[in-house]
């Protein structure tokens, strides 16, 4: 499967990934986000903006993700932490933009 990503420099790219990959890993392995904590919802460095057409197709945020997003200066209504998003065939083609570093 593929996902569409716009990185922090504004460059658009299509990335290959597998069913079951975490979105954060796909981005971190290409150095597009820091993801220092490795997906423990601790560092909040993997914020992405999800294309509005895809937002409702993601499982809702849990309490911890909401708490972190609440405090991020760059957060928008379509913000998610990529560590909390597991890619599946239903998300094939999802479009996201990597949020600026805090």
């Amino acid at each position: 499967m593929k996902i569409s990503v716009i990185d922090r420099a504004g460059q658009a790219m299509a990335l290959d990934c597998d069913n079951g990959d975490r979105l954060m890993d796909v981005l971190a392995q290409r150095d597009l986000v820091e993801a220092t904590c490795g997906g423990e919802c601790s560092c909040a460095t993997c914020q992405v903006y999800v294309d509005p057409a895809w937002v409702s197709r993601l499982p809702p945020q849990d309490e911890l993700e909401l708490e972190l997003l609440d405090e991020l200066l760059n957060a928008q209504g379509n913000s998610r932490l990529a560590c909390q998003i597991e890619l599946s065939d239903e998300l094939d083609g999802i479009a996201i933009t990597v949020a600026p570093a805090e």
Partner: protein
Amino acid sequence: MSKHSLPGQAASRVVIVGGGQAAAQLIGSLRSHGFAGHIVMFCDEDMLPYQRPPLSKKFLLGALEQDKLLIRKPAYYSDHEVDVRVGCPVLKIDSAARQVVDANHQTSDYDVLVLATGGRPRSLPMIAADMAGVHYLRSVNDTLALRTQVRDGLRVILLGGGYIGLETAASLRTLGCQVQVLEMQSRVLERTVAPQISQRLLEEHQRQGSQIRCNLGVAEIVGDQRFQGVVTNSGEHIEADLLLVGVGMQANTALAEQAGLECDDGILVDALGQTSSPDIYAIGDVARPRLPDGQGGVRLESVDNAVQSANRAAAAIVGSTVPAETTPWFWSDQYTSKLQMVGLAPGRATWLERVSSDGQRLSCFCLEDGRLRAAQCLNAAGDFIVAKRLIASAQRLDPAMLTNPSIALRDLVNKASE
């Protein structure tokens, strides 16, 4: 332009000794900077760079597969033309000839050498090296070895109430073991966290049915071929099936010392990661900052430090603008408790306490001249994010407002200073 070679010529061969978080980050950072030269990475372990934090938590619990530990997928290294030598330690550095000699007795030339050799678990002289039932926790193999021993009712003694000891204690208890933690100091995590946080974590472990015993050391290890228990320094005999030693890490400085680099509980480095030899850098757990007076500063053992130190060294190697040093941060997960910390507090610091009205969330703040120097947030992830900003803004803070949970922390951030 690099300062390591002739004008107009960037360093073309970077050799990395070590294959952990810092090494993986350095590679990514070099390539992101557009470094097109040759990169060789030597890993002691027979595995590509992987995340260590889950080793005491999700990976020990069996909740994370081994290949999910990898920091980058195998294809990354070939796609980015990184010459990876796994299971191949470096035996010697010849700094005059700018070469390393590896375990296969092959030499590799470098323009820049980066030491990311990390550390190994500290042991105690009284513990026999080959005694069955004695375990450490630093590598994937350590966790795999521990996992083969785990069974319901296994009696485990954890020596040391630090992060490794407590996180492993939580995981082993969750897996049904009987757990006792022995800590020499008067409280767990004594060296790094506020007393209030130590107390909360202690209570959590006790609630889960583990014993945490402070002010208690080990005088003797009982057992011949196999571990059978300990005698404490108060004379008590404790029978057990397994000993997990979590008494800290020792920096792997042997190669650096042999090469004549300045070392003192770590390889001494400047703000860029440069050692006493200009074309050799050290990053991650093994690197210790050299203070202006020449003494060693605080050597950090953390993912954040591995990442930041690698990024600074990579920028210096390619001759790019070096990112500013950031305030160090750390985290630990034990059971469902989430501890996030930012900044280093002095020993015996005075901590201000902010407790949520339901008592569940605890944040401790250490002020210096009225400015936030360190924050430790237990089950208060939002406070942690704001505390990072409060430290960065270096604004003066009113302790009464900081500790009042009915005032949102974010409302204290001085907008003008952001």
